């Protein structure tokens, strides 16, 4: 977005009184989708995503949303139908989680390779085995290397707002990548809270012109072969393949500043209730000696725990990751600048490193900082386990202890019996 648009955006004073309502996270995602006016949604029900697609179906049945809805026979086809739709020019959306995400891995990987600007909510779910239908980030974390942008939401309002923004991000010409809005199964998907509905006309203005298949199309008026075989050990195959891969990585990198600009534009248009940290949120960090790191809906309880600790004189702050893919290295470097001990809470497991995935990614950022910061991986909230203020008081206590002693190589399993 250029500055002209920002300057002409309506000011807070002119804005009509926001429409207050109460809804659950899944419903907020559906309302965000409706605001973004997609042409096509494809759905397949799976816990805890189901109420989201039910809401979409109802919005369409009630005529409140003008989109073609495809009840496909499985997630693999859900994403495939949308790829076809996008190649014919449709703005497209779906939602899934856990086993459904695993089932769609083949078209999932291809979506980013074809630079199709799909938006898909992952209503995060743990598992696949031990079988669990409850929340956890293992599904979304497992597909980290598939080239999608992933943003994690903390509140119901953030779900709604991020869902709308995701479409503009995906379709930005410097990005052209599919986006996952990650919304925690259970506590956020079914959690009901007060939100403000953005104004449709203003959202339309924010979204701008739609053109999702300017770069690749299946259109008899623009004949082309889409996704021909590329590579091989001879000729121009490998360099052709590398060119596309590098292009994907460049799109990912570009996404960082597009996400930042977009969040700023959004907050300017819709007001402070709609202001969210785009990449990394720094909470009470300014004079903090040590910090805890969170992702997604656990952050609310963690902030309350930080407030309690602060009230008791502790110099603790909190770092929340909003954008996980691309990983916000520079923003996180900034957040970690004065931190002398760090506790990172993950709701999933990195099997290779015996720690949480966000913890492992953060180690790379600390290396870039050139600082030896004692850091501890905490793993909790698996399979729907509740991460409460009490849990985070423990995380804070154990992180403070790192100021005096070395961290453990083992993760701290927050919901374990021991």
């Amino acid at each position: 977005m250029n500055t002209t648009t920002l300057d002409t955006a309506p000011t807070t004073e002119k804005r009509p009184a926001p429409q207050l309502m109460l809804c659950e996270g899944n419903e907020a995602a559906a309302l965000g989708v409706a605001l973004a006016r997609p042409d096509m949604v494809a759905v397949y029900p799976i816990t805890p995503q189901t109420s989201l697609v039910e809401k979409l179906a109802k919005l369409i049945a009630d005529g409140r949303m003008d989109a073609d809805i495809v009840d496909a026979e499985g997630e693999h086809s859900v994403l495939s139908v949308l790829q076809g739709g996008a190649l014919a020019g449709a703005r497209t959306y779906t939602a899934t989680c856990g086993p459904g995400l695993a089932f769609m891995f083949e078209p999932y990987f291809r979506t980013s390779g074809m630079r199709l600007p799909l938006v898909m909510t992952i209503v995060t779910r743990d598992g696949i085995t031990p079988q669990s239908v409850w929340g956890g980030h293992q599904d979304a974390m497992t597909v980290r290397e598939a080239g999608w942008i992933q943003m994690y939401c903390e509140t119901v309002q953030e779900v709604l707002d991020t869902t709308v923004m995701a479409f503009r991000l995906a379709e930005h010409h410097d990005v052209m990548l599919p986006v996952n809005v990650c919304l925690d199964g259970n506590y956020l998907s079914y959690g009901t809270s007060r939100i403000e509905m953005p104004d449709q006309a203003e959202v339309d203005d924010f979204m701008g012109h739609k053109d999702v298949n300017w770069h690749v199309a299946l259109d008899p008026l623009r004949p082309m072969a889409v996704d021909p075989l590329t590579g091989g050990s001879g000729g121009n195959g490998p360099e052709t393949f590398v060119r596309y891969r590098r292009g994907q990585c460049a799109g990912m990198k570009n996404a960082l500043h597009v996400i930042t600009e977009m969040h700023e534009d959004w907050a300017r248009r819709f007001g402070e209730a709609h202001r969210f940290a785009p990449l990394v949120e720094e909470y009470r960090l300014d004079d903090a000696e040590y910090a805890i790191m969170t992702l997604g809906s656990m952050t609310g309880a963690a902030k309350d725990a930080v407030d309690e600790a602060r009230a008791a004189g502790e110099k603790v702050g909190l770092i929340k990751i909003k954008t996980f893919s691309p990983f916000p290295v520079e923003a996180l470097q900034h957040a970690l600048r004065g931190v002398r001990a760090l506790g990172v809470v993950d709701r999933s497991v990195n099997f290779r490193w015996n720690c949480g995935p966000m913890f492992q990614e953060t180690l790379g950022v600390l290396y870039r900082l050139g600082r030896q910061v004692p850091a501890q991986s905490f793993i909790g909230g698996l399979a729907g386990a509740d991460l409460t203020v009490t849990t985070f008081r423990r995380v804070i206590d154990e992180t403070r202890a790192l100021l005096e002693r070395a961290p453990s190589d083992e993760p701290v399993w927050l919901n374990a019996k021991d």
Partner: protein
Amino acid sequence: MSERHQHYPAWHLKEAGVPDDLCPVATEQSPMLPGDWRSFRPVVDRDKCVKCAVCWLYCPVQCVEEHAAWFDFDMKTCKGCGICAHECPQRAITMIPEAQ
């Protein structure tokens, strides 16, 4: 029916301003010609050919060309499979070895 058979011109990414590192696509037609695959070539006996088009109907590469009074083959693309010779009802086509 005929409106289905209008020709659409080729489309070019570069002219449309699309970066070449976005999505793997191809708009240039493959220049490959398999005429050099042949070890036998079809030869038409023009006196026998009645232009029944059986050779055209069954030619996998569709390299049959119509002439005034007979059908012949485009040797740039003929792979020399011999189907035309085998199917010709007039026995008007013979497969002969390509010259060494």
